[in-house]
């Protein structure tokens, strides 16, 4: 995939359905990073993401003629990818969630830079993996990928109310974490302390040595 195929998505998909052997790969290649991001964040694991993407793309490749054109091609692709991720996670359910390695001293949270983007992204990705699969899928689609509630409901094939409540549950779990990250020296059960100590220590007062 070195040369971008100039044809629009719908045209590429139609070409694929009528036997163009490279159209589908061109289509997927164009959206590969976004599909990867969704798969990676929905599954929380690069291996699972790659496996799920392969399942999904082969399915999409075979069932392309079922695409009706009433949705965007990307929505259709994302739907297949998200469902493949959820399927794969359900099948792997017996496997315990593998927590990410603890934040070690090589990557300290910088209290002086509580909004450091890399750190924050790292922590959020880590926190995402602690969410139940269904909640994570809803949150990733709506808050990370920017789909509307309606679109996410369509993608996940569940009622909008369910999408909202899953997303809300997920946000409720993440907010305390984000709060903690942004204000590391101020554990939430301690009344607001004086700013001096907050900035002089390099770890939360309550943290273990």
């Amino acid at each position, binding site marked *: *995939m070195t040369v971008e195929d100039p044809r629009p998505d719908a045209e590429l998909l139609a070409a*694929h*359905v*009528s*036997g*163009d*052997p490279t159209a*589908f*790969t061109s289509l*997927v*290649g164009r959206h*590969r*990073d*976004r*599909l*990867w*991001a969704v798969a*990676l*964040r929905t599954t929380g694991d*690069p291996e699972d*993401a*790659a496996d799920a*993407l*392969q399942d999904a*793309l*082969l399915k999409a*490749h*075979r069932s*392309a*003629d079922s695409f009706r054109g009433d949705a965007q091609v990307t929505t259709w692709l994302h739907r297949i990818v998200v469902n493949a991720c959820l399927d794969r996670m359900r099948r792997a359910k017996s496997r315990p969630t593998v927590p990410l390695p603890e934040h070690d001293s090589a990557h300290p949270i910088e209290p002086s830079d509580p909004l450091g*983007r890399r750190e*924050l*992204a790292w922590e*959020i*990705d880590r926190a995402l993996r602690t969410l139940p699969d269904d909640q994570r899928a809803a*949150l990733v689609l709506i*808050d*990370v990928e*920017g789909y509307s509630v309606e679109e996410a409901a369509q993608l996940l094939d569940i009622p909008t*109310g369910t999408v*909202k*409540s899953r*997303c*809300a*549950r997920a*946000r*409720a*779990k*993440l*907010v*305390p974490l*984000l*709060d903690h990250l*942004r204000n590391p020296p101020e554990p*939430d059960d301690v009344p607001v302390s004086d700013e001096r100590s907050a900035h002089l220590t390099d770890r939360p007062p309550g943290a273990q040595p």
Partner: protein
Amino acid sequence: MSQHHDPVHPDSDHLTAEVLADLGMGLLDETSAAHAEHHLTHCADCAALRDQFPALVDALAELPSEQMPEQVWQRLSAALAAEPVVTPEGSATVVPLEAARKRRWTRPGIGLVAGAAGVALLGAIVVPSVMNSGNDSSVGTASDTAASGRAPNQVPMAAYAATQSGTKYQEAALDSQVTQLVEARPRVNGDTELVTGSGTPAATPSESIRATTEPTESATGQKVAPMATDPAAAQACLVGYLQAPDVQPLAIDIGTWRGEPAAIIVLPNADPELADVFVLDPTCAGPGDPLFYFATVSR
């Protein structure tokens, strides 16, 4: 984040993150929402917690975009390339390339010709009758060609009958094309039997392929340009690729695959109803794996 849980009495208890999340999503009923809103007007802690939600949503939206690692893309495109082109009938049963590659090493019995010393060599004996049926004089056999051929590398080689039909092989039609190819062989009768034995001074591929480098009409009727393959390279490539054990191919043909010269090698499958089809770069000239495509088709 308070541990208290009573949105109905917001004045007495702090709001939980769950309640605030539901409030933000519009999931609370009117009464609960009103109580929560009222509590928020005079509880700074809860208001501060509520304000974390937009911050969270912003942080999620700003997560750096992920780039698909190149190796993942390679894997996915190989899997897609191994899929048959969409057709209403859907003919070929396809094994992903990865599986095909594994199979090539692990399955005993895959291979072209094994010499007595364990050296597998391929002598490509062109049998033009596939494209020129009826012209009996053009039928070559291992021994015919050997008689007139030079053997510049002087390697005693086992020979195998191959055709150079120039057929444009395609995923969608592979099933029928392979059937046609395999069935074409008996029609040229015993002459195309596999000639093996390291003592046979078989034709050099260069002789035999050179003999048919004029444009030919394929079994499917397409004119194809002369092959520009170096037969010696083709031989080394295919032998090297398929390794040694001695299962006899059902057919070998030189044609094209997606516009490129390709060697089509049909090997028996464990299931007699099926055949394994390897589509290879006949020269191994490309930078990557010479296997273009692999499929198991019905016979």
